[in-house]
Each structure stands twice: as structure tokens, then as C-alpha cells.
């Protein structure tokens, strides 16, 4: 196996034993990028020089024996997290030339932990999309079938891990943007509890739903990444000062006696039969591991999509108001006056999906409509949260499919926003409730497309997710495949 194909913990062993250097690992990642990036397009920007310099430094650290959790590990960053001195575009024309003078807290944490940054990964514009097709910089392709989408919005972060163009990556998840592409690309993706990982420096889409999380090649790597990412940040008011356990301790523990909730609302018609079969098989694996599956109900599930498509666009239309051409980013010149500058800058700077959501959000917050839309959506959101609180009285974790279908064809749903929105139907409730969720590979379709199973747990119970995900991973005996590129 090449170095770039290994996991974080495998590479850590090799580094410790002197079998691999940070420079060698980074070089092997960039060799792979050279070979496949033109076809996959995981990245908006590559940071080869910086990465090799950081790797050389990491090797000095390794020589001194001061190894940190991610020393010498090549990591990709979704281009939604701000990187000091490095352009951060959010996949948008309006920020195509924006260079932040600050690092996101997660970037600081990763750098402090020794990570080597490979590049800025492609994404749907402002994280609005489920296919990475809305990126100003062109779509990312699914390494398992280049005719298909990788999922989104963190598509580039998912494909970079799936195609071994990095060892692990960072994504953000507002309604499924980590878990859905993780499922469609056959990697592990975790959305932590709201407040668990700092949002400072994460370019906001919907502030009450956004959360940063990792993409990894296996569950143990996910725990290693969470050890670095999790924790209170005084720069964020919604950050929670809850204790951060060592997540690695949950890897390899059994789940004997656990109750696994199977929400009946998530197993309805419309799910692809192969996905349904794979997830049902996952349930039997969990039972073999000693878990007891019980049917539960999350009665307000049917409203999740509607609530989400009020709250997220409402917050987004406000969050995106700052892109006005005045201070940074795109400004369309030769404007007649201020209003003209605003209109032309935003008309040219934003893509169709972003404009659609700005309009929906503006409408939902308008005088006379607020109560019927935003106000009502907030009330229903509280009911959705309550559904989960009731569920935790009956089970320890919840198991669902991550997505209703495997990866669809590029262009297949771009003209039908509602169909596109439906691909997040199983992931959205997690964000509305603020709870953590993880997607783990659970097999392949007959056409060779990956399928994911999703586990959900209560607030700050990422440990439980890692425990069940690792138990599942160990016992599921999923065929080890790599995409043929």
C-alpha cells in the first residue's frame, strides 16, 4: 500500500517506527493528486509548497521526539474555513479573491496538533447544495463513478479522502453536508453536537445549524480528529464548555446491551432498495454485536425538510448580506450609484442556488410573513428536538440510512431543487436538534456505489457514536475496496 492510502493511526505507527517521514507521506499525497485530481477535482486550491515546508518542519519535530496527535498528517480543509493569508472562497465568485487575515479556530487547532494542510477542498457555493455542483469553480466528481456527484456540500473534502488525495479532511454540516457526501463516497463522516467544535472562522451559512466535523478513512481516525477539533472556544458565544473526553477510548469497546432505536419514519417508500437492503443488513450486524434494536417514532420527521428550508435560508439571507462589494471580495465596478453596485455585485457574485435561498429567506422573514414562516418553523423545530429527547428514553443510539439513494448522476437534479433537497431528508433532523451524527460505510450497490449507515446520539455523546461505529466497522466485514481511478 502507498503511504497516502493509509489511515492516521497507521501512519502514526510508521512515523514512530521510522518507516515513514512527514515529507514522504506528503509527497505521496501530492503524487496521487497529480494522478487523479484532474478527473476528480477535489480541490479549489492546492498548497503544495506550504505543505512540503510544513512536512519538513514536522520531520524535525519527529526527530526531537515531540510528536503531536497529527504531526506530519496531510489534511484537506473545506474552503469554508478561513486560513490566514490563504484565499478562502466558500466556492463562490463573490469571495474568489478573499484572503482572510485570521485562521479559523479549527485551523489553529489542527496546525497546533502538527497537521500538514494539503489544500482547500471544493464545495457547493456557501455550502448550499447536496452535490458540489453549485461551486463557482466547477463540480467535483465521485471517485467511484466519475459521471456521478460526490454529494455535498463538502464534496471535495469527501472525495479527497475517498481518492486518497489526503489522509483526512475537514468539512462542515448544516443539513447533512458531511454525512451525505461521506456516505456517497464510502468514507466516515461525523457531524458533532452543535457547540462541540468551534465555528469561529467557519464562513456562516445557517448559524444555528452549522457545525464543523471530520472525514476519515476509518472510525478510529475520526476519534483522533475529534480529539483535536473538540473543545470550548471563548471566541464563539454558542460554544459549550463541556468536558472533552479522549475519544480514542471508545474505539474497540463493545455495545452489549445497548438499545438501538430504529425510527419507523426513516424506513418508508422512496428509499433505493439496495440502500434499504444494506441498512437492514447493518441492523443485523449491530444485533450480532449485542445491540438490541427497537422500533421508535420521531413523529415530526415529516416536517424536518420544511422547517429546515425556512430556518436555513432565513439565517443565510442575513449571513450573506455582508457580501456587498464594499469591503472585500468581488465588486462590480462602473456602477452608477450605491444601489447599482450592490445589485450588480450580488447578481454576478452569487450563483442561482444561493440567490434562490436568499430570496426564500428574505421572504420568510418579511413583515407580515414572519409569524407564519420563521416563527412557526422555530416552534416546530422545538417539537423535533422533543422527539429526540423522548427517543433517548427508549434507546441509546438511533440507526438510519444516511441517504435515500446512492450517488446520482451529475446534472440529474440541478434543475429540480426539491429533488435535490430530498437527498438530505435523513440528515437534516440532526442539525435541527443540534445532536451529533455519524455516517459509516455499510456496503456497495451492485453498480459499485458506496452506501452509508447513520448513527445518531444525544447532545455531546460523540463517544457513543464512535463506540457503535467502531463496533459496527469491526464486525460488518465490509469488503475493502478502493475506487478505480
Amino acid at each position, binding site marked *: 500500500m502507498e503511504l497516502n492510502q493509509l489511515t492516521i493511526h497507521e501512519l502514526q505507527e510508521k512515523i514512530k517506527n521510522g518507516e515513514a517521514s512527514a515529507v514522504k507521506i506528503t509527497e505521496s499525497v501530492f503524487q496521487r493528486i497529480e494522478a487523479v485530481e484532474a478527473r476528480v477535482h477535489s480541490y479549489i486550491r492546492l498548497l503544495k509548497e506550504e505543505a512540503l515546508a510544513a512536512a519538513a518542519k514536522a520531520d524535525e519535530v519527529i526527530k526531537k521526539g515531540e510528536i503531536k496527535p497529527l504531526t506530519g498528517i496531510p489534511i484537506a480543509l473545506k474552503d469554508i474555513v478561513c486560513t490566514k493569508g490563504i484565499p478562502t472562497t466558500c466556492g463562490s465568485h463573490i469571495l474568489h479573491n478573499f484572503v482572510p487575515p485570521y485562521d479559523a479556530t479549527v485551523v489553529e487547532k489542527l496546525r497546533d496538533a502538527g497537521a500538514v494542510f494539503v489544500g482547500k477542498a471544493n464545495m457547493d457555493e456557501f455550502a448550499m447544495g447536496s452535490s458540489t455542483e453549485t461551486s463557482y469553480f466547477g463540480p467535483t466528481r465521485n471517485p467511484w463513478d466519475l459521471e456521478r456527484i460526490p454529494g455535498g456540500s463538502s464534496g471535495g473534502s469527501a472525495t479527497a479522502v475517498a481518492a486518497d488525495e489526503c489522509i483526512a479532511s475537514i468539512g462542515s454540516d448544516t443539513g447533512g453536508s458531511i454525512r451525505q457526501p461521506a456516505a456517497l463516497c464510502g468514507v466516515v463522516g461525523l457531524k458533532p453536537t452543535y457547540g462541540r467544535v468551534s465555528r469561529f472562522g467557519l464562513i456562516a451559512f445557517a448559524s444555528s445549524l452549522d457545525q464543523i466535523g471530520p472525514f476519515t478513512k476509518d472510525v478510529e481516525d475520526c476519534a483522533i480528529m475529534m480529539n483535536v477539533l473538540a473543545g470550548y472556544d471563548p471566541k464563539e458565544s454558542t460554544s459549550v464548555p463541556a468536558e472533552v473526553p479522549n475519544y480514542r477510548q471508545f474505539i474497540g469497546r463493545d455495545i452489549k446491551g445497548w438499545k438501538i432505536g430504529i425510527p419507523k419514519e426513516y424506513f418508508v417508500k422512496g428509499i433505493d432498495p439496495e440502500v434499504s437492503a444494506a441498512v437492514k443488513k447493518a441492523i443485523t450486524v449491530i444485533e450480532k454485536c449485542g445491540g438490541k434494536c427497537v422500533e421508535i417514532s420521531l413523529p415530526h420527521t415529516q416536517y424536518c425538510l420544511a422547517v429546515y428550508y425556512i430556518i436555513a435560508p432565513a439565517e443565510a439571507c442575513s449571513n450573506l448580506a455582508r457580501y456587498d462589494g464594499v*469591503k472585500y471580495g468581488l465588486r462590480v465596478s462602473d456602477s452608477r450609484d450605491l444601489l447599482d453596485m450592490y445589485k450588480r455585485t450580488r447578481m454576478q457574485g452569487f450563483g442561482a442556488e444561493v440567490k434562490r435561498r436568499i430570496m426564500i429567506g428574505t421572504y420568510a422573514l418579511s413583515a407580515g410573513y414572519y409569524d407564519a414562516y420563521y416563527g412557526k418553523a422555530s416552534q416546530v423545530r422545538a417539537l423535533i428536538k422533543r422527539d429526540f429527547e423522548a427517543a433517548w428514553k427508549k434507546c441509546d443510539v438511533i440507526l438510519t440510512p444516511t441517504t435515500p439513494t446512492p450517488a446520482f448522476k451529475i446534472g440529474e437534479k440541478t434543475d429540480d431543487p426539491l429533488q435535490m433537497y430530498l437527498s438530505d431528508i435523513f440528515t437534516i433532523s440532526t442539525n435541527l436538534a443540534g445532536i451529533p451524527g455519524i455516517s459509516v460505510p455499510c456496503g456497495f450497490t451492485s453498480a459499485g456505489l458506496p452506501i452509508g449507515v447513520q448513527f445518531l446520539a444525544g447532545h455531546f455523546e460523540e463517544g457513543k457514536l464512535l463506540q457503535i461505529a467502531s463496533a459496527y466497522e469491526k464486525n460488518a466485514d465490509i469488503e475493502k475496496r478502493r475506487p478505480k481511478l
Partner: protein
Amino acid sequence: MEFETVIGLEVHAQLLTDTKIFCGCSTKFGGAPNSHTCPVCLGMPGVLPVLNKKVVEFAMKMSLATNCEINKSCSFARKNYFYPDLPKGYQISQYAYPLSEHGYVFLDVDGAQKKIGLTRIHMEEDAGKLMHDEHNPLSYVDLNRAGVPLIEIVSEPDMRSPAEAADYLKRLHEILVYLEICDGNMEEGSFRCDANVSIRPQGQKEFGTRAELKNMNSFRNVQRALEYEIKRQQYLVESGEKVVQETRLWDDAQGASISMRSKEEAHDYRYFPDPDLVPILIDDAWVEKIRKELPELPLAKRERFIKDYQLPAYDAGVLTADKALANYYEEVVRLCAKPKAVSNWVMGDVLRFLNEEKRDIRNCSISPASLAEMISLIEAGTISGKMAKDIIEDMYKSGKPPKVIVEEKGMVQITDEGELIKIITTIIEANPNQLKDYRGGKEKLFGFFVGQVMKATQGKANPQLVNDMLKKMLAG
């Protein structure tokens, strides 16, 4: 037709915290453009606000000082609109859940106390400033002020005249400055006011259509703008037209207001709870801690001055209008124990000097000790009140203590009876005709003799003593 005026005011006061409301930048006025900024107050992508606790505490002080009820839970909302001085495209403010509500202050109206209700006090961030290039179609944005903390104090429509409105503003201003939470500078914009004005026929219960007035940057302008607006509305009604709901800008130079936008053009601010900030929970212990930190407020001080120093209400009002002035007054009284005399000298001479030069009592060249010494010199009869009038002017100009001035100018009062007898005798002898007429009943001539004595002594004779002695000696 007789009309009644209805006025409600919205006051914005900048809080004197060292740092901005949601970041660590300085709030100092007057730095180089954009020198007091950071990614947070510049509204850069991905940054987040963290509330400055001092802002909440300052706002709580104002709430307590104006008898508002502080809500146990309040929260921030976003007020969305586009303008280049608003870097995020929204202002973080409070909307549905303000910090405090249901307060009041009292005004003196025609000798009676009138209660003016306060609807609410809420916290928010200030916007930046635009500077327009006179020669080019360009505007520059300075975001030093963006994120400076403000409180907005909203009154009930309880005022019935421009004078009441001005009085109410002075009351709020006085309290803010007393609390040391706002410098009250109207020119620099740290104390701003918008007014809602309407008129209605005397006796009518429903309010008339209101106009909102903006851009009045002094107490005088507030009163002028309100007077103008009332006349404008009366004219409209009397000539059969309708007052329309609109926002009007006061133009000081023109002495008139102009329409800025109509109700139809009004912004829809699309308020919603700011998801980046959590609700502020305020328990009783916190409120009590802040209550204990409150200084003596103007009204209480006024009442104490009347009671403890036996001052007329008018004096107490003037002396307590400024906390520094009140402190100055009390210090002088502590040193010379003549409260009414001190009041007369402070209100009469000291304030006149300061007003002439537009100076503040904090920069007064007459120290409390000097003024106390001068008053003691009068009491001791060393100098006369008339002499003191000259001395105090000299004290103000030179900053010298009164004793030094008295010595330098040889201004010690003549109180020696033997010396005065000699002088009076000489004068009587030199003016036999006047003496004869006086004794014949022309009592007005008494003044003539007093004048002669003062002239002979260059004004240094003790006037009371001269009066007493002249009466005796002229009577023969």
C-alpha cells in the same frame, strides 16, 4: 382650533466602555480611519460576536436609575438593512426581548412633578461613518465607530410640548453623565435623539399621524425642530391637508425639516433572533450588585442639597445639574461652612466666568480652597463683598489664592474706627452746605457722604461700618 402636541423620544447613548460591544477593539473617538477595527467589527466572513459584559452592566445601571424593570432573560436580534457603514448588512440590536421595560422619570412642569414613561431600554451596536469626497463621486467608510456599544432609551408618547421634550432630554443626559456611562457629547454623537411628533385637537383621545424627526444634534435643535414640526402639522391640518407618516431630517442651517422617506419607503428590517448569541440571563443577585454600585442620582442630590444646605430649589437645581459642579460646591462648603454664600458665588460669578469661556468646572482655575478662603475673608470683614467681586475675577484670571491678591493690591478693608473718624470728620468739614441740607431733611444726601468716604479710602472702607458711623456723625 386648539391643538395638543404629543411627543415621544428615542435616545441613543454611546456607552463609555473601553472596548466595543462584540470585540476587543478600542471605543476611543477620533483615531485614524479604521484604526480601531478587527475582523469581527469589520464583518469579515466567519467571525463571531462575543458580548462585552460591561455593556450589560452599564445598561443595567441606566435601567435602575430610570426605574425600569430588568427582564430576567433578554436576547439580541438582527436588524437587517444594507448600508456601507453597516459592515455585516445587519445591526445586532434587541427587539422582542429588550433588557428592561416600564420605567419613568419625573419632570418639573409648572411647579408640579410630571411622570414621563420609559417604554424600554435596549442594547445595540453603533454603525460606522461615511465620509464623502467633495470633488469626486466617492465615499469613504470609517468603521472605527462600528460596534461601539449603544443603549436606546424609548419613551412613551408622554410629552406635550417641545419644552417638556427638551427637559426630558436634559434629565436623561444628566442621569447618564452622573452614572459615568456616557460622556453625553451631542456634537460627537455620543448622545443622539430622534423624535416622534403628532398633533391632535384638544380633547381628542386618539393620536394623530406622527412624523419621525432625525438629525437634531443639540438640545436647542431638538426644541427648534419640534416647534417647526408642530407648526408644519398645524398648518397642514388647518388648510385641510393630511399629515402623512414619514421620516423627516432636520436641517439646522435652513431651520426646517425635509422629508427623508415615506411610510411606503420604510425599511422592512426583517428582525429575527441572532443565532450567534445566546440569551442573557440576569438574576436578582446581579441586579442587586449593580444597584449597590449606583452613585447618588441627580434628583436625590437635589433633595439633599435643599435639606442639608437650606438652599432654594432653584439653587439646588443649578448646582446638581452637573455632578462635577455639585462636588465642587460641596467641597467649598466643607471648607467654609457658608452654604448659601457659596451657592451665590458659584452660581453668580464662577459659572459666569466658565460660561463665557465655555469651560467646564473640572478645568476651573479657582480651586474650591481658594473660593472658600475668599468667602471666609468676607465673613471676617477683611474684604468687602464689593472688593471680592474684583478679587474673584482676578482669581479666575491668574489662578492666585485670594490672600495673595489682597496683599499684592493692598486691598485690605479699613475697619479701624479711629482712622474712619478722621476721614469722616475731614469730609464733613469740607462740605458744610451739604451737611446743612442733610440736617434740613435732604436725606438723599446720605449717599453723597458715603461716596465721599469710599472715594477717600479707594473703596477699602468697610461699608457697614461707614454707614453706621456716618449716621451718627451726620446727626451731630
